[in-house]
């Protein structure tokens, strides 16, 4: 049954002549009852596609150029200038243009439609370039080593009480013994009265100037405290330490093993509290100098003495600088440690 909802389906077939003849009468009856649904007679004519043609079809075709013999004269001339002809084909073209003025003109014209490369300079090449990603292991290792050294030095420097190393000036030549140190060991440098004592310098030559002997326990904290061995620096009693070697910029440091009584460079690491205790102890026993050894010197003595055997140590102070502050230099044989 044809209704207002489905009539379009029948109506389109009717207009196109495809409607079942059995339904034609029914559709016409329906349209008679519903004249508002009837379309104009030219309804289908309006739907007819206009004649539109694409004129540039040749541009879309990808036809290969014909063989040379089938080429137009114009194409032969172009092919000649393109340089794609054989030698014999070129001669053919040359003969061809020689016979016709028009072809000669065309030949000349085509000769002029070639672009000459203009020089262009791109000025931002630097922005386009890339850098290689290279891992510089040696450099990284060097940085790591530097940081390690820095840490070690800072570790020493960061112990403020170490700066209170002590030089003890003893009233007699007896090394400090049985001094009660409750905590840990201390690198105490005792200054010993030794008038007339000969001093050995680095080169082993004898000198009657200041002789500084350090008597430092060979073991660490416990042995230093329990064995009651105090490291010492011995100088002549009447000579002021500051006015002697240290003031003059050079102090000869010679360590002495108390047991073997032989000179061995051996510097014991000290700790903060021990230093304070030892300062007090040394105050009780004689004169002293605070800040006698900066921590860096202390560290250097500790580290390098292990590798130098019995070679004496030389501590050299920079001239015109406060004692044990600022720049200093340590020489052990050919080895030199300098702090700026």
């Amino acid at each position: 049954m044809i209704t207002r909802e489905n009539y379009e389906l029948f109506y389109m077939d009717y207009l196109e002549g495809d409607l079942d003849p059995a339904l034609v009468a029914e559709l016409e009856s329906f349209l008679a009852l519903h004249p508002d649904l009837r379309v104009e007679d030219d309804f289908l004519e309006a739907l007819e596609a206009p004649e539109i043609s694409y004129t540039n079809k040749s541009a879309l075709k990808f036809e290969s150029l014909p063989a040379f013999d089938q080429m137009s004269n114009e194409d032969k001339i172009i092919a000649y200038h393109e340089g794609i002809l054989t030698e014999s084909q070129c001669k053919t073209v040359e003969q061809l243009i020689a016979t016709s003025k028009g072809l000669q003109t065309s030949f000349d014209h085509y000769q002029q439609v070639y672009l000459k490369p203009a020089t262009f300079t791109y000025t931002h090449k630097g922005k386009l370039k890339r850098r290689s990603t290279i891992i510089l292991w040696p450099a990284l290792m060097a940085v790591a080593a530097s940081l390690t050294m820095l840490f070690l030095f800072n570790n020493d420097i960061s112990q403020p009480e170490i700066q209170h190393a002590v030089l003890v000036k003893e009233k007699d030549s007896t090394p400090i013994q049985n001094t009660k140190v409750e905590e840990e060991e201390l690198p105490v440098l005792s200054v010993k009265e030794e008038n007339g004592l000969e001093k050995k310098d680095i080169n082993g030559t004898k000198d009657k100037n200041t002789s500084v002997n350090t008597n430092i326990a060979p073991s660490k904290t416990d042995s230093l405290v329990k064995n009651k061995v105090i490291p010492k620096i011995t100088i002549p009693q009447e000579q002021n330490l500051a006015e002697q070697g240290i003031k003059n910029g050079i102090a000869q440091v010679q360590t002495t093993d108390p047991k073997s009584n032989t000179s061995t460079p051996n510097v014991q690491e000290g700790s903060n509290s021990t230093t304070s205790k030892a300062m007090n102890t040394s105050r009780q026993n004689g004169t002293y100098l605070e800040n006698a050894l900066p921590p860096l010197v202390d560290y250097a003595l500790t580290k390098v003495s292990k590798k130098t055997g019995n070679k004496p140590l030389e501590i050299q102070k920079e001239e015109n600088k406060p004692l044990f502050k600022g720049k200093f230099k340590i020489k052990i044989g050919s080895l030199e440690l300098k702090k700026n």
Partner: protein
Amino acid sequence: MTVKEYNNAVDIYSDGIYRFAIKHLRNEMLADDVVQETFAKVWQKHEDIQGSKVKSYLFTTAYTSILDVIKKEKRSGDMENVSQQQAGSSDIPNFDIQQHLEQALNTLPEVQKSAVLLRDYEGYSYDEIADILELNASQVKVYIFRARKSLKAYLKRIDILV
């Protein structure tokens, strides 16, 4: 392609890419964008590109970028108003015929224009141009023949060729 080869490609081919771009776009800034985009794309794939193929890859990438820019600019209508800026560093031979030829070049379809530029400026063979423009050699040859005819017709129309 190594980093060194890539940087060498910058030294050797950036001028040509820039020229190729500016001839299409007639705008320094747009051409500069194309050059940078081209090399950036090539850098992204530099490990997969053979050093011997980099020039072809660069021009292919530049050509694609140029077409993208042209489409974009034409959509926004800017391309019609683009002033014909030439790079300050350009050194066009001061021959009238060449200047008119440059103008005639701009009347060609992009594909023909590219084919002619690659042929005349870069000296590419038909096969190489086909590789760059993603055509076959016969198509390139046809495009170039058509372009030559169009250029000649243009110059003749303005009485440059007599």
